[in-house]
């Protein structure tokens, strides 16, 4: 592989996650983009492609951002891939650089989600009319959410975790709550997290039940936030300063998958198969295995989801996710720390920003710039994100050798 095939993160930034009532979507996205450019030591004049995502927006966030930070006429891509939107934006920029169309790319994900309620359910425009008329793909005469299962995210992902329990055993309410206890504990060291208070097991289990076994603190927090990254290739990096080369983080794998057909995927999204495939492809591309990882940021949109991804990402043996958690491995002082940022349950989940923010977290550790939260000696990390229904992004990142 020639140097120009190597992809590097030159600069990356995430905003504080939480409530930003005084900033609109463009302001927030611009803050992240400017932060990433500054971190990279470049300006918009150096950027050859911009890919941006804002799931709740009007589909033109990239152009809006250009007008806010610099209009240079470069190609822009407005991307959407549910909760994997940020990772998809990053991968779009990476593909452009890899293809040789540009030497440097900027990816941005931004969302204003503070105060949003339950996502995914009851969203049909049709109301329960006074005359029953079959309509839609299922010929339904009224809204099916709540009548034919649930479409809300806490309930969907609750079933994902419970299904794992049915297959392998060993899961109960308390196990899932303890996963959440870990992430809330981790968040106390993250000043950018939307919520950074520790929560006891009792507090978590006795909080408001949303969809058994997920109580409120076991659900990802809707909040505002943005993240952005500047990527470049190895040849370009060599022309930059030693400091830029030292801080650059190598993208050893950038993988995106969608869900292949599975028997049950029409009734419950299969978040497992596409994650397993993405992980396998990523390990092969990077030439490493899960045993080489120093930390993982995975998509804990709900406590019930974190469990299955231990297995899907190969962090444990097949069926061994419960034992892996019970061993203490995924705690920050454990064998393989998972979600030391606090995860989506406490850091927050501004949808389109998440797939870059998790990469920011890994980069901070690999650069040894993460202060109190630093995982000492971290050299290799994996960031995973999943969006229904479905897209999975897996990035493997390595510390610069320079």
């Amino acid at each position: 592989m020639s140097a120009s095939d190597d992809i590097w993160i030159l600069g990356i930034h995430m905003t504080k996650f939480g409530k930003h009532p005084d900033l609109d979507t463009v302001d927030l996205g611009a803050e992240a983009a400017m932060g990433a450019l500054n971190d990279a030591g470049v300006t918009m004049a150096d950027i050859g492609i911009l890919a941006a995502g804002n799931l709740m927006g009007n589909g033109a966030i990239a152009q809006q951002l250009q007008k806010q930070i610099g209009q240079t006429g470069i190609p822009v891509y407005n991307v959407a891939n549910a909760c994997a939107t940020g990772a998809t934006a990053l991968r779009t920029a990476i593909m452009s650089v890899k293809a040789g169309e540009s030497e440097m790319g900027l990816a941005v994900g931004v969302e204003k989600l503070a105060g949003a309620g339950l996502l995914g359910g009851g969203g049909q425009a049709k109301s329960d009319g006074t005359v029953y008329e079959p309509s839609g793909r299922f010929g339904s005469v009224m809204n099916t959410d709540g009548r034919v299962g649930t479409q809300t995210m806490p309930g969907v992902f609750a079933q994902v975790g419970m299904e794992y329990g049915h297959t392998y055993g060993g899961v109960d309410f308390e196990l899932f709550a303890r996963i959440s206890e870990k992430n809330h504990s981790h968040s106390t060291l993250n000043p950018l997290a939307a919520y950074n208070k520790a929560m006891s097991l009792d507090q978590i289990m006795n909080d408001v039940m949303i969809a058994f076994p997920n109580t409120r603190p076991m659900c990802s927090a809707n909040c505002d936030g943005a993240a952005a990254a500047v990527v470049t290739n190895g040849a370009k990096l060599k022309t930059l300063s030693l400091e830029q080369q030292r801080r650059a983080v190598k993208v050893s794998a950038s993988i995106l998958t969608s869900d292949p057909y599975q028997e049950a995927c029409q009734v419950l999204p299969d978040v497992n198969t596409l994650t397993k495939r993405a992980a396998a492809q990523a390990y092969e591309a990077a030439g490493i295995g899960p045993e080489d990882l120093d930390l993982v940021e995975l998509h804990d949109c709900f406590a019930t989801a974190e469990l299955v991804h231990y297995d899907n990402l190969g962090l444990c043996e097949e069926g061994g996710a419960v034992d892996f958690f019970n061993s203490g491995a995924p705690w920050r002082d454990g064998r393989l720390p998972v979600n030391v940022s606090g995860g989506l349950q406490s850091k927050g989940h501004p949808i389109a920003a998440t797939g870059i923010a998790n990469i920011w977290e890994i980069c901070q550790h690999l650069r040894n710039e993460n202060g109190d939260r630093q995982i000492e000696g971290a050299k290799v990390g994996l960031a995973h994100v999943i969006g229904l229904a479905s897209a999975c992004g897996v990035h493997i990142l390595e510390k610069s050798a320079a």
Partner: protein
Amino acid sequence: MSDTAQIPGQVPLVGYLKLGENPHLTANQCVSCGARFFDRRNACASCFGTEFETVDIENEGEVRSFTIVSRAAPGVKVPFVAAVVDCGGTSVRGNIINTEPDPDHITLGMKVRLATYSLGTDDNGTEAIGFGYEPA
């Protein structure tokens, strides 16, 4: 797809619920590979075959996963139990009904069977019939 209005004065909640003496679900089955779909497909998601036939789904099944939903969108009655039920190899989404919606009464692997219930009557006097799965 057969006519959805199989019983005068009644209409099923969804087109794949067949009413009558033996209420049951149906699916569009790929003639080539047997994959089953509750909605229409142009080609099979599994093998890309383009021929489908209507088949009946077994009424008895086993709970493969569930959640007890306590918070939902406005207008959705809570709590309710949403589940994935394995009906003879076909996964079905539906509610668990006719039992208490709590973890003491709902367990992974429990045996269930299809049951129907009234969802109300419209201005024309037509009754909507829903389905769920009750403990067998």
